[in-house]
C-alpha cells in the first residue's frame, strides 16, 4: 500500500503559484526526499499533507486517509516536524512531549514510558526537565523530532530537519534520522535544500522546482541518468561557442553554460577524455583557466533537469 499518494496538487497564494500539479507516491517504509531550492513548493506540499492547509485542486492521501475528507484520521497517523520548531519554549522538554502525547490521546503510564524512551532515544534525557529556552539549536531539533514521534505515527514528515544546524550537528542528525526510521519502521517524507542530505537519507527522491516535480527516482538512478562524468572547463577569455564546437568534435557532449566563461560537458570517462579535450582546445587557440572532472552529484542532477544552478537559485538569484 502507498503510505502517501499525491495527485496533481495545485495551490495559489494570491498571484504566486506555489504548487503547479505536484504528483508522487511514497511506499510504506520508504524514506522519500523532496529536494529543491527555497520557495520551490516543498513546504507547501508538506503543509497540505499534514492538513495545515488545503490545496486548490488535486487529491492527497496519507496512511490511506484523504487529507481533505478525514483530516483527523490523518493527524493521528502522522508525526510532523515543522521547519520552525513550534515547541513551547517556556515549558520543559518533558512537558512538551507529555502534552503532545495527550492531545494525541495518550495518557498514564504508557505516555510516561514513551516520553522517557524518546528522551533517551534522541539523546536529551539529561536536559528533559530543563526549560526549552535553555536548549542549544541541535537539542531543540532533537526535541522537535521526538515530538513528532511520541504517538508512534506511521508516517513522519520532516520539513528541513537540519536547517540552522552546524555541519557537525547536521551529520549527527542524519545518523539519528536513519536510525529512527529503522527503529520505528517509519515512512518518512523529508524536504531539504541540501543535496548531500537527500543523497544520504532518501531511498527515493523527487526534485521540485517552481511548484512542479521535475524528476523522480533513487539517487543512484538520477545520477546514472546523466550518463557519465562532468568536465567543467573555465575559459580564460570566454570563447564559449567555439569551445562548444571543439569539445563536440572530441566526442564530449557540451551541456550547460555557467556564467559567461564556464562550460560543462558530459563524457563517459572523465580522466581518459581530459588530455584530448585540453589538446583540442589548445590547438584551436582557446585558453583554459581551470578544469575539473567530477563524478555526477545531485548538483549535476539538478542542473541537468532544470537547467539552473542549484546554489544560486537557492539564494534567490
Amino acid at each position, binding site marked *: 500500500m502507498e503510505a502517501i499518494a499525491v495527485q496533481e496538487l495545485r495551490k495559489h497564494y494570491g498571484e504566486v503559484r506555489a504548487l503547479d500539479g505536484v504528483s508522487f507516491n511514497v511506499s510504506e517504509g520508504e524514506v522519500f526526499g523532496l529536494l529543491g531550492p527555497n520557495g520551490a513548493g516543498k513546504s507547501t506540499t508538506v*503543509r497540505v499533507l*499534514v*492538513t*495545515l*492547509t488545503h490545496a486548490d485542486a488535486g487529491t492527497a492521501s496519507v496512511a490511506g486517509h484523504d487529507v481533505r475528507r478525514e483530516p*483527523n484520521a490523518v*493527524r*493521528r497517523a*502522522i508525526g*510532523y516536524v*515543522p521547519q*520552525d*520548531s*513550534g*515547541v*513551547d*519554549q*517556556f*515549558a520543559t522538554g518533558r*512537558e512538551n512531549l507529555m*502534552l*503532545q502525547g*495527550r*492531545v*494525541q*490521546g495518550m495518557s498514564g503510564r504508557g505516555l510516561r514510558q514513551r516520553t522517557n524512551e524518546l528522551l533517551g532515544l534522541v539523546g536529551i534525557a539529561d536536559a528533559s526537565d530543563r*526549560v526549552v529556552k535553555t536548549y542549544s539549536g541541535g537539542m531543540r531539533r532533537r526535541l522537535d523530532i521526538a*515530538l513528532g514521534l511520541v504517538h508512534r505515527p506511521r508516517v513522519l514528515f520532516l520539513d528541513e530537519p537540519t536547517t540552522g544546524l552546524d555541519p557537525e550537528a547536521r551529520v549527527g542528525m542524519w545518523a539519528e534520522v536513519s536510525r529512527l526510521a529503522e527503529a520505528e519502521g517509519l515512512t518518512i517524507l523529508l524536504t531539504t535544500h541540501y543535496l548531500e542530505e537527500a543523497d544520504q537519507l532518501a531511498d527515493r527522491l523527487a526534485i521540485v522546482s517552481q511548484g512542479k516535480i521535475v524528476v523522480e527516482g533513487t539517487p543512484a538512478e538520477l545520477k546514472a541518468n546523466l550518463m557519465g562524468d562532468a568536465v567543467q572547463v573555465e575559459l580564460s577569455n570566454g570563447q564559449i561557442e567555439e569551445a562548444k564546437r571543439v569539445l563536440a568534435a572530441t566526442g564530449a557532449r557540451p551541456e550547460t553554460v555557467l556564467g559567461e566563461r564556464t562550460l560543462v560537458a558530459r563524457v563517459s570517462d572523465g580522466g581518459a577524455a581530459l588530455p584530448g579535450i585540453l589538446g583540442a582546445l589548445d590547438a584551436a587557440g582557446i585558453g583554459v583557466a581551470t578544469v575539473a572532472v567530477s563524478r555526477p552529484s545531485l548538483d549535476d542532477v539538478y542542473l541537468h533537469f532544470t537547467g539552473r544552478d542549484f546554489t544560486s537559485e537557492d539564494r534567490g538569484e
Partner: protein
Amino acid sequence: MSIARDTWFMTVRQARNLMREPIWIVLLLVQPMVWLLLYGQLFHNVTRLGGFGTGSYITFLAPAVVVMNAFFGATWSGMSMINDLDHKVIERFLATPASRIALVLSQIVRSALTAAIQAIIILLVSLALGVHIHTGALGWLVIILAAILVNSAFAGISQAIALLTRREATMIAVANFIGLPLLFLSTTMIAKTQMPGWMQMAAKFNPVDWGVRVARAVVLPGTDWSVVGWHLLLLFGLSVLTAAWATRTFRAYQRSL
C-alpha cells in the same frame, strides 16, 4: 468532550508557564495596588460629595479595583496568543487532532484564572486596609465571579483581535484605546449620582460597569441580589458571545495558512 479535555491540557500548559515566572502576577498587581493605596488615600474625602453608600472611600473603591484589574488584564490576554502564533506553537497543534476550539478557549480560561488569583490577592490587601465585605464569604465568591466574567468577556475580544491582526503593536494600541475610556465611563472611581448625565447613560452599556456594580453591591450594605444576578447573567452572555467570535476568527486564521 475532547474540547473540555484539550482545553484543560492547554490551560495547564499556560498556567504552568505563568507559574514558572510568578513575578508577572506580582508585576501585574502593582497597578491595582497604586489605585488602592495611593489613589484611594488621595481621594478619601470624595465620599463627602454623597451618593457613595459608605463614608469609606477605600470600601467603595476596593471591589471596583478588583474588576478594573480583571478588565485591564483581559485587554492584554491576546499577547500570549500572538506569542504562540509567532513561535508556531499553534501550527504544531493544528497538525494533531487537538480540539481547535480548545486552543482558543484555553487562552480565555487562563486569562480568567489569572484574574481570579489576582482578585483574591487584592481582596486580602483590601481586608488589611479595613474594607468590610458586607455579605461575607458569598460576597467573596460573587466578586471573584464578577472578575472572572469581566475578564473572559474582554479576553474573548482580545483573542479575536490577536487572531485578526497577529501583531503585538496593534494589540497594544487597542488595549490603550479601550482601556481608559471604559474605565472613566464607569462608576469605578465615583458614585453614579456624581457623574454627568450622558456618562451615567453610557455606563449602562459598559460591561466594566456591570462588573463594578455587582462587586460593589455585595460589599456595601443593602445588597440588591436581583441587580447582582442580572448583571452576572449579562456578563456571562457577553463572555459566550466574545468567545464565539474568537473561535470564528480562529477559523479565519486557519484559512489564511
